[in-house]
């Protein structure tokens, strides 16, 4: 298992950096927020990402993928974090793509192909509680003659507004089943506005009738596949946070070098130097956790859970430290909306919470080690 990025991974990273800095800089994200766009991402940019092959990176060649693995994917998420680029990469490609790859039958493969090419996008409806608890499912599915009846409510559905369909987890028979629910008026969709101005939905299913073909995987037996997909999602989020935190930290170090008070650069104050150095230390530790988890996703996916929990835990902790220091070291200007710091702070806070914060992953890590 290598901690070093390959030639291919670096190439992907360079392309992502070049593309995003030109086409999706932070100012574009700010404009999306201010214009109150419904999708909360730019559909053109999304199409271009798909044309660059970003949807295909982790999938095998026979599925139409590139088979580059997760290190390359991590590099792309890191670049998206750096530029605060919003896109359905996480929701559609990583989460739903992984579920389809693990569970789809021959007919359902068409969804996967369409997701890889970007022709369609799906969103994963798993959370029901204020905090992430994927195993506490109140949504129910009942088997009827020619299909299923789905009832319940899902929340924090990432990119859940206006997708082509949702993959929904439900309590069914003896366990957790997953269903592909194509977009329809019969699903009540409420848009949630969060501090990071991205696309989130609350979904209500009131005795929704689904055909037999909607079932993804075996009845009552999909929780393991769901956990695996969630782990990949957590990993991509950790990579994204790493990119955002590095950007935030670099902005702060630059500021220490230019801002003057008391006739000197504030970076000359040892009180600030040591704290900046501490941030650097923590970022390096965080980087190792992310890189290792990305390698594990490639080389020994059966060990993914603990290494992902370590990464998401570490990143969430470092996020508190660095976003706090970034604001504090900027002084008054740090709390103004005009600076991008606030946009990073808000996005990072949501990413911290999505699919388990540091407490969730500490408890999970402890359980996995027991």
């Amino acid at each position, binding site marked *: 298992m290598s901690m070093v990025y390959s030639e291919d991974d670096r190439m992907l990273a360079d392309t992502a950096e070049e593309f995003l800095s030109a086409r999706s800089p932070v100012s574009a994200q700010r404009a999306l927020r201010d214009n109150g766009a419904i999708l909360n991402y730019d559909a053109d940019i999304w199409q271009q990402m798909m044309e660059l092959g970003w949807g295909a990176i982790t999938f095998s060649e026979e599925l139409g993928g590139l088979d580059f693995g997760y290190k390359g994917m991590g590099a792309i998420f890191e670049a998206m974090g750096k530029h605060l680029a919003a896109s359905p990469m996480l929701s559609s490609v990583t989460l739903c793509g992984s579920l389809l790859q693990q569970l789809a039958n021959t007919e359902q493969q068409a969804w996967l192909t369409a997701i890889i090419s970007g022709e369609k996008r799906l969103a994963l409806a798993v959370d029901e509680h204020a905090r992430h608890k994927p195993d506490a499912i109140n949504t129910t599915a009942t088997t009827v003659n020619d299909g299923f009846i789905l009832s319940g409510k899902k929340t924090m559905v990432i990119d859940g507004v206006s997708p082509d369909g949702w993959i929904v987890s439900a309590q069914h028979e003896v366990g957790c089943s997953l269903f592909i629910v194509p977009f329809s008026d019969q699903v009540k969709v409420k848009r949630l506005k969060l501090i990071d101005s991205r696309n989130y939905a609350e979904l209500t299913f009131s005795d929704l009738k689904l055909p037999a073909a909607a079932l993804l995987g075996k009845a009552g037996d999909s929780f393991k596949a769901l956990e695996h997909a969630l782990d990949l999602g957590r990993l991509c989020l950790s990579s994204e946070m790493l990119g955002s935190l590095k950007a935030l930290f670099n902005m702060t170090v630059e500021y220490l070098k230019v801002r003057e008070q008391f006739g000197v650069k504030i970076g000359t104050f040892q009180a600030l130097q040591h704290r900046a150095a501490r941030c650097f230390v923590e970022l390096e530790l965080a980087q190792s956790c992310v890189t290792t988890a990305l390698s594990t996703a490639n080389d020994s996916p059966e060990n993914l859970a603990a290494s992902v929990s370590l990464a998401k835990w570490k990143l969430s902790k470092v996020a508190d430290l660095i976003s706090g220091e970034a*604001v504090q070291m900027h002084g*008054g200007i740090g709390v103004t*909306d005009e600076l991008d710091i606030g946009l990073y702070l808000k996005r990072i806070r949501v990413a911290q919470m999505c699919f388990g914060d540091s407490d969730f992953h500490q408890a999970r890590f402890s359980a996995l080690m027991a």
Partner: protein
Amino acid sequence: MSDLDGFRQEVRTWLEANCPMSLRTPTPDGELIWGGSDVNFTFDDQKLWFDRMRDKNWFCPSWSTQYGGGGLTAQENGILESEMRRLKCRPPQINLGIWMLGPVLLQHANEQQKQQFLTPMTRGEVRWCQGFSEPNAGSDLASIRTSAVDQGDHYLVNGSKIWTSYGDKSDWMYALVRTDATAPKHQGISLLLLDMHSQGVQAKPIDLISGKSSFCEVFFDNVVVPKENLIGELNGGWKLAKELLQHERSAMSKFGEFQLPTHFDLMSLMSDYLPLPHSASEALLFDKAVAVNMEEQAYNLTVQRLGEEMQAGQSCFGLMSIMKLVHTEQEKIKFELLLDAMGYRALGWEDDNFTEQEQAINRAWLNSFSQTIAGGSSEVQLNVIAKRVLQLPENKGVS
């Protein structure tokens, strides 16, 4: 029964009779009353409470009756505050002038200035803002450049201020201005009171990460200010500024005691959002909450000790210098934890799918980042402790 017990009884009876029930609850965002020429009441009880407290002379309970204060002793004032806390009375009004400028005027203004400026404060008629910081003078406040030039019978003020809270809503500003450009930086500063409605004053709001605000950049273009508005000695403003900042910091350290919109009860909110039984991760959150609560307890005890030592006439400079630092740092930690506990429910933004309280908590979290910067950053507080309290040697080259 001692006199003080009698006084307590009197206060209690009066508050119970006069504080409307609707105002014995935490103040929701947007229902704070700011005294000034344009007071905005959202419902009748607020006006009733405002008027009654004003007529009782309890906007400034400990100030001399000569200027419309309540004439209470420090001990009596302490009793009034504790009874208001006990009944959960909302503050009848908030006014930076009373908290920060008032004590400095009481000490250093001449009689005519006291009559002119203190009386409207005790009536809740004038809203004040603080014009200290400038773009290049934040932590290094003594580097301010806004100038006030002597024109015989008035000063002509030019320059700009930044981060002026409520600059666009205030009637008057207390400003630090440079009155001697040639003297060493601390020796050419004066404290000047300036009518915000004067010709040549322009306040431009700056949006904050917590949303739209009244946090302003203020520009002065040949603003005429009467010479009578200079407080204390010409070029003696730095000493007054330091005193004023002490009052600001002690006011900020007290925010937690009032029923302000930023006050949330961590434990009860955690129990609301995380009902029993607790998962392993929820148990971790509760462990942290206990620690936060215990730290807060240590702080509250310190508040109490400070109060008692001050009433006993002891010198408390060292103790006072830690209060704002501790309180604002604790608030940041508390809100981080509250956000963790509430999950996505605390991350809503201007969306009716979230309760008002949930949205207020999010804004309060974002606002908590400002509090360790405003009124002198935590670093500056630590420098004050290191230099002035511990008298550690100076680093040459940094003034």
